[in-house]
């Protein structure tokens, strides 16, 4: 692999894109490397928006430290708007037509929005750093003035739940609303869903489940959130965290095979069948996992990082290797560290397999399907992560 005389374009400066570029430079790729970064002032650690940035533990500059782009990579601060596969050109919003010999689609996700609700003033989205920083300073200034900031978080899934716990820790009075009765079950399984509800309760976060927001209006003093049962929630600010969808609008009409949810359908090598000079990695990649025995798509930073490295290798080497992984997720809810390694099914049983007494009240809970332990949930037990990663990999 030399790559001399050719050009590889990475669209997306998140986990997958950053990791791919590092793998390529470490591997001595000799072609030109280009990065299309949609963030206005360069890449940053996006998961930090709902955590470090919202809590005030780190600012945006600190969240850029690990995302620094190697000087050999040419960065284009714009977003991809179109792909012409025949011509081999990605068109950018700033007018640039960027020719490529190889292309990595790593454009990640965009936050979903609520129809008819504008993100201005007292209503913000959790995926916008400016809006997150504004909520942060508003909550902090209320706290320093001896007042309690009231916040409505729309969405109580993984991110909504993290946001609610971060804001509660900052002293805000939080109400979270979600149409699902088990909002965390999809991302983290039914066991965490139940645990999180208990933790929210203990920390004074009010969670209204099975409720839709029918209108959200703002005035000089605050926001009014109307639910489908007629209930009106009044708060100083509302933060929208209703999930994400693949950021693949720019691929529409390009002949790249897509799933119904807008992800790129790739082979086990993460290469696009019939267009092996194109790969996808991260949130946008829908891939067949041999371990799972079906196609899957994972929206998590760690898997995106692994896929970025694998896609970079397969795009630039003659004998591509199938990608597979034992996925690992983590979240932090009300100060508790939660890890999950392996797989689980909607009907998994959760069985406590904690051995002896663990520090910090740690628990290990196995996801069991058909009598087999397929994954492990660690609650406050990071010291056991490596062991259970190995155990999950062996099953």
């Amino acid at each position, binding site marked *: 692999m030399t790559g001399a005389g050719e050009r590889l374009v990475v669209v997306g400066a998140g986990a997958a894109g950053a990791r791919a570029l*590092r793998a390529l430079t470490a591997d001595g790729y000799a072609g030109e490397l280009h990065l299309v970064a949609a963030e206005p002032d360069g890449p940053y650690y996006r998961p930090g928006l709902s955590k470090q940035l919202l809590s005030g533990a*780190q600012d945006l500059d600190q969240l850029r430290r*690990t995302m620094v782009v190697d000087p050999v990579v040419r960065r284009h601060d714009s977003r991809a708007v179109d792909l012409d596969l025949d011509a081999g050109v990605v068109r950018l919003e700033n007018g640039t037509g960027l020719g490529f010999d190889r292309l990595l689609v790593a454009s990640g996700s965009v936050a979903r929005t609520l129809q008819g609700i504008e993100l201005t003033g007292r209503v913000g989205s959790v995926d916008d750093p400016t809006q997150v920083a504004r909520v942060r300073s508003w909550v902090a200034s209320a706290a320093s003035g001896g007042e309690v900031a009231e916040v409505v978080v729309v969405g109580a899934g993984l991110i909504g739940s993290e946001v609610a716990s971060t804001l509660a820790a900052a002293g805000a009075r939080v109400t979270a609303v979600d149409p699902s009765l088990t909002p965390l079950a999809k991302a983290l399984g039914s066991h965490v869903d139940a645990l999180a509800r208990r933790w929210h309760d203990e920390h004074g976060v009010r969670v209204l489940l099975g409720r839709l927001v029918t209108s959200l209006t703002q005035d000089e003093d605050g926001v009014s959130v109307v639910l489908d049962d007629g209930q009106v929630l009044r708060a100083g600010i509302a933060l929208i965290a209703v999930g994400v969808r693949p950021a693949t609008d720019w691929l529409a009409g390009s002949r790249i095979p897509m799933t119904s949810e807008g992800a790129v359908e790739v082979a086990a090598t993460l290469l696009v069948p019939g267009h092996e000079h194109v790969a996808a990695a991260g949130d946008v990649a829908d891939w067949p996992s041999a371990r799972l025995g079906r196609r899957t798509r994972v929206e998590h930073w*760690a898997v995106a990082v692994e896929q970025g490295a694998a896609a970079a290798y397969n795009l630039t080497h003659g004998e591509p290797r199938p990608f597979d992984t034992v996925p690992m997720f*983590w979240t*932090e809810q009300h100060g508790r*560290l939660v890890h999950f390694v392996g797989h689980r099914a909607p009907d998994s049983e959760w069985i406590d397999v904690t051995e002896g007494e663990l520090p910090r009240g740690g628990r290990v809970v196995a996801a069991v399907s058909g009598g087999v332990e397929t994954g492990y949930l660690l609650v406050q037990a*990071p010291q056991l*992560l*490596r062991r259970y990663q190995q155990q999950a990999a062996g099953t």
Partner: protein
Amino acid sequence: MDVTVDQELCQSFAICVGLAPDYFELDEQGELVVLRSEVDPDDEDTVGEAALICPKQAILLAGG
């Protein structure tokens, strides 16, 4: 290349321990310990991956 961990930021998620056990370890109290700060050129890719993944963005790389 040198690796350090900002102990103020680190919450011992231990993702790095799984990725680069030659460099990171949790002690008996669950505190993260950097086993060696000088990164072998062969390990730069792996330690860089740990820094990129770290949930608290507490792993800092300098030089090299």
